[in-house]
C-alpha cells in the first residue's frame, strides 16, 4: 500500500486537483478562457429563454462565497464543547441539533456528527464524487475533491493524515466515513487542553475546517 508507486510528475499532469486550464491565471488575465466564454454563453442563452434567473444565481453564489463556510460548523462544535446536553443531542441526532442553530440546508439535510476521543480519530471522505456538508463547512477545498484524497483516505488513512501533519499513536483507531449516500458527516474535534476558560464565541474561533473533516487536530 505504498503511495510512492506512481510517477508523481506524471500524476501532476493528470490529477484532477491540478487544473490544466489553470483558472488561477484566468483570474488575473484580461482575456477570458475558452471555458469562461462557454459558461457565459450557456448562462446567457438559458437566461434569454427564461429557464434561469440570473439574480437567483447571483444570490446563491454570494451566499456560498461570503456567508456559508466553516464558521458555521465551528459554532456547532463550540456549542457542543460548552454544553454537554447539546453535545449529547448532537451526537444522537446531528440534524436536529444543527437545526437548532439554523444551519441545515442543501447537501446537509441529514447530518451525522462523529466525535474524536482519546481512542478514536474520525476522517471524512467521499470516494465516489465529493459529497461534503455545505451548510456547515461551505464548499469543499480542491484537495478534498482530488483523486489522491478520494483514493487513499479509505485504504491508507494514516499516511494521508501524516501528510497533513497528524501523527496518531498506533493505539488510536481510525474511523473513515465514506459519504456514499445522502448523510453528510462532521467531525467533532477534541477541545484543546487549556481552553476551558474561553466562552463559546472565543472557542468557535479555534475550530478549523480541516479539524471538522478530520485531517487536523486542534
Amino acid at each position: 500500500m505504498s503511495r510512492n508507486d506512481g510517477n508523481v510528475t506524471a500524476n501532476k499532469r493528470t490529477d484532477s486537483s491540478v487544473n490544466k486550464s489553470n483558472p488561477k491565471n484566468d483570474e488575473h488575465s484580461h482575456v477570458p478562457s475558452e471555458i469562461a466564454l462557454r459558461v457565459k454563453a450557456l448562462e446567457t442563452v438559458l437566461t434569454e429563454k427564461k429557464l434561469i434567473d440570473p439574480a437567483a444565481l447571483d444570490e446563491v453564489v454570494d451566499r456560498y462565497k461570503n456567508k456559508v463556510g466553516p464558521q458555521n460548523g465551528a459554532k456547532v462544535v463550540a456549542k457542543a464543547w460548552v454544553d454537554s446536553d447539546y453535545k449529547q443531542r448532537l451526537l444522537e441526532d446531528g440534524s436536529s441539533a444543527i437545526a437548532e442553530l439554523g444551519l441545515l440546508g442543501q447537501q446537509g439535510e441529514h447530518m451525522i456528527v462523529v466525535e474524536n476521543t482519546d481512542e478514536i480519530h474520525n476522517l471524512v471522505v467521499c470516494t465516489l464524487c465529493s459529497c461534503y456538508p455545505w451548510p456547515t463547512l461551505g464548499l469543499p477545498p480542491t484537495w478534498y475533491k482530488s483523486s489522491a484524497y478520494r483514493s487513499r483516505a479509505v485504504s491508507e488513512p494514516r499516511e494521508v493524515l501524516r501528510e497533513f501533519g497528524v501523527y496518531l499513536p498506533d493505539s488510536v483507531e481510525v474511523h473513515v466515513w465514506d459519504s456514499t449516500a445522502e448523510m453528510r458527516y462532521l467531525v467533532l474535534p477534541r477541545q484543546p487542553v487549556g481552553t476551558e476558560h474561553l466562552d463559546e464565541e472565543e472557542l468557535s474561533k479555534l475550530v478549523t475546517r480541516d479539524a471538522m473533516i478530520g485531517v487536523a487536530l486542534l
Partner: protein
Amino acid sequence: MNSIHDMGGMHGFGPVEVEKNEPIFHADWESRVYGLVRVWYPWARYKSWGSFRHNLEKIPPQDYLNMTYYERWFYVHEKKSLETGIVTEAELERGRASPDYVIPDLESHPDSWRGSRRLNEELPLKFCEGQTVRARNINGFAHNRLPRYVRGKIGTIFSINGVYALQDTNEKDEQPYQQLENVYTVKFSSKELWGTDGNGKDFVYIDAWESYLDFD
C-alpha cells in the same frame, strides 16, 4: 458503473496536495457553474437527463482525470443541454438565444420531489444494528452508489438512517424515485477490505441502500 469516479483504494495519484489560502472559487466561471447547477438543476426536472452523478461518471476516464471539478459539472450540463435541444450549437457559438427558439417539451419527473432527502416514511427493516451483512457484487453500467472496494466484503450494520428514494438509475437511464428503501451505515474492518495491507485499528463506514446488502 465501473469507472474512474470510483476511486477508493486506487494507487498512483501521489500525495494529497493542499493549496494554502485557497479561494472558494478559482475563477468567476466556476462560481457561475455552481450557481447554475443550484438554481436550475435540470437533472431532477427532466426525465431524459438521467442522473447528474451518472452523467459525471460517464465522462471517459482519461477526460475525467484531466478535468477539474467544475469543468466536469459544466461539461455534463452543456452536453445534455445540446443533446436535449434546450440550446443549439449555433446559439452557444453566438452567445445569444435564437430569435425563433422553441423550448423542447421534455417529460418531467413526477417523483423527483423525493430527490435525495430523507422521507417521512417507515419500511420494514431487513437488517438490524450489529447484524453481519455482505455487500452485493453489483457491476451494471447503470448508476449506483456502492463503491467497488466493498463489493463482496463482509461488514456489520452500524446504524439505520431512515428511508430514501434509491439514487440508482435503471436500464433506461432514469432514476426510480418511487423506489423507497431503508439506508444503513455499514462498518467494515480495514483488514476485511484490504487484507494484510489493512490496519487492524482502522475501520471504514459506508452508507448503503438496503438492496446493496445481503445476509451473510
